[in-house]
């Protein structure tokens, strides 16, 4: 199901703990064209996000459509970079990890069920 940008941002604002990220630390900012920027911070399992244009380990620039498609899991982030659909500044590894753990993706964990 496609999510709206606002839904994704609202749900991410709630700070939470994700055990899968206990070894990870990094920040990733999404600059959404015509909408604004929001920053996701992961600090050894603690995941928090806020509307901010602050500095980050990596910055992903995209259209609103691509942003939603990526976070809904419809568009692979890596191929979006390669195609030039999405811009990247900074650490690709951080981008790859962080985008996996924003809310739309987390909901899709149901897909982990056996086919």
């Amino acid at each position, binding site marked *: 199901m496609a999510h709206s940008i606002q839904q994704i941002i609202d749900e991410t604002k709630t700070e939470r703990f994700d055990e899968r990220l206990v070894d990870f630390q990094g920040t990733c900012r999404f600059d959404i064209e015509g909408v604004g920027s929001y920053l996701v911070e992961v600090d050894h399992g603690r995941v928090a996000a806020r509307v901010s244009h602050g500095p980050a380990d990596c910055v992903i620039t995209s259209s609103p459509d691509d942003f939603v498609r990526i976070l809904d899991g419809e568009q692979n982030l890596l*191929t979006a970079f390669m195609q*030039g659909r999405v811009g990247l500044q900074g650490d690709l*590894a951080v981008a*790859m990890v962080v985008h996996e753990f924003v809310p739309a993706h987390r909901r899709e964990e149901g897909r982990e069920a*056996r086919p």
Partner: protein
Amino acid sequence: MSAGMVSVLDGETFAVSDRRGDMDASPTETAGLFHMDTRYLSRWILTVDGKRPGLLSTDDLAYHAAQFFLVPTTGTIYVDAPLSIIRRRAVGHGFHEDLELLNHAREPRDLEVRVEVGSDFADLFEVKDALAKKGELYRRVEDGHIVLGYRRDRFVRETWIVASGDAELDESGVRYRVHLEPHGEWSARLEVVTAFDGFERHDRAKYESGSSKARPEGTSLQEWVDNAPRLVSSWTQLHRTYERSLADLAGLRFYPRFLKEGALPAAGLPWFMAVFGRDSIITSLQALPFESEMARTALLLLGAMQGTRVDGFRDEEPGKILHELRFGELTAFEERPQSPYFGGADTTALYLVLLDEYERWTGDVDLVRRLERTARKALAWIDEYGDRDGDGYQEYQTQNPETGLPNQCWKDSPGAIVFSDGTLAKLPRACCEIQGYVYDARRRCARLAREIWNDAALAGKLEEQADALKRRFNEDFWVGGDRGYFALALDGDKRKVDSLTSNIGHLLWSGIVDDSKADAVVAHLMGPRLFTGWGVRTMAEGEGAYSPIGYHVGTVWPHDNSIIAMGLRRYRYDREAARLAYAMLEVATFFDGRLPEAFAAHPRAYTEFPVEYPTACSPQAWAAGTPLAMLRVLLGLEPVGDHLLVAPAVPVEIEQLGLTNIPGRWGRADAFARGRIALEGDLPRRH
């Protein structure tokens, strides 16, 4: 890549040219400047007064830089040239090339120097499958540089060519009109920049003034060699093989942009300079007694990119370890699934084997703790997804029949898994060696669970699973009667795929073979149907699909033999291990110390030398790792607790063999041996 080519590389960028330094790509000649799976330059040809100079010599001893010493051709076999032409090239974000002309004559000279340029922006898969490009190639001259470009929608790749001094630029090249005084000199600097690669923009090549000041990413070749154990041997040619293996592995180190530091082995030059799960793991295993950083990086990177979801296009499943990662055009547009692709049924178990083996050698408990979750997810994948039908065995069948791999074992060519009569095995296939790897992975992870993760329950469960698997495997895969070997696989109908193949040697390495069956397995491996005298064939002579030049159904693969040799030692067939290791090291001497990916399976007595087989990669990582693994086999190197056990099995043909400064959890240790094993006699015997 043909043997006469020169490769220089740095990070994810490498240049392949002929020995004059020219690049002239063709369907049969893989030359050019490559970056992230795309060819940024397919034509780079130097002419002086319209003629291509001849070669005096090439210096490519440093893997990141090369020098080419040239003279004008005279049309005769004699070189009596009044002019020297020197090209110095260093790779990094493209390459930098210093061009130098020396006039040796007492008269002045006027010359036209030109470099022809061009790029096809080819992707590996276009070259492999002869596909046409879907976008638009363009070229122009702007702001003092030549732009070669390719555009498809928003996918843009550009090569910029910058030339120093009073160069005349046009869309096809760079021209200098050179005046040389008597005994005068002239020089120019050319830069080829991989300007847009989809991730980064570069305005300049990485190094500003040629090879002398260039420093590649990571440890230098000299540091790499200095850190490795020192070989001591009376066999002089072995030194060449050892040095070449170390240099090739150094050159194949790949600095993935997914990690801040560390290198892992790419599979091979030129088209396999990419992350491959299986190849990186096997090569890291082969090299562990010599260098452990590659293994560490491979574990971290492959762990970080472990599968998280079910994605049929990429054959991805939660916990699975990736097979291949690419960045080329077809991958970008999802016309190929390598972003990354997870179509390897053995990599997840091999990953766990490497994790344990890495800790045994290095004592790096922290990394094993750090990767505990990764390992648990990998173990869960083996149980939940690797075993597709719940019969206790690992099976594979791609969910992407269009562009996925039909064979997801190391013998991944389409016709590799066949019955003795040559008919293709039905999918899903349960290859025998993968069951062995899983057995080994469970036993090893049981140790890690007990000693490091403090989880005795998991250890107990894994040991039970491993024991049960071994018991059933030795019944279900055994081809009995007078044949006496393990089937290559079970097919989709659970029938034994009864070809006799080298895979049975991997079973020895894994430890899954019952002691009572080992004699029979070894007799086959060292018998005339499988052993050529140079090595063990991938498939036995006489099988329906066998051909001495069949890619996975005949040819001899060095890395395959290194695993078999380690298996022979595991089951204490020391003489046979020594024979195999010595034969493979002999093979290397026929290839100037660089083992090929594979060679033809003609009997040794028939050809008297190993017959080369044309393959895609040279050097290839696990072929380069093979001499290292064979040295381990000959010296019988095994970590035991905090000590290095040395139990040599060296043939009398090698009078003296030793390694000093072997790194490990013990610090540094030495191993010496004298050749005492006579290789006469054909019957396998335990020692």
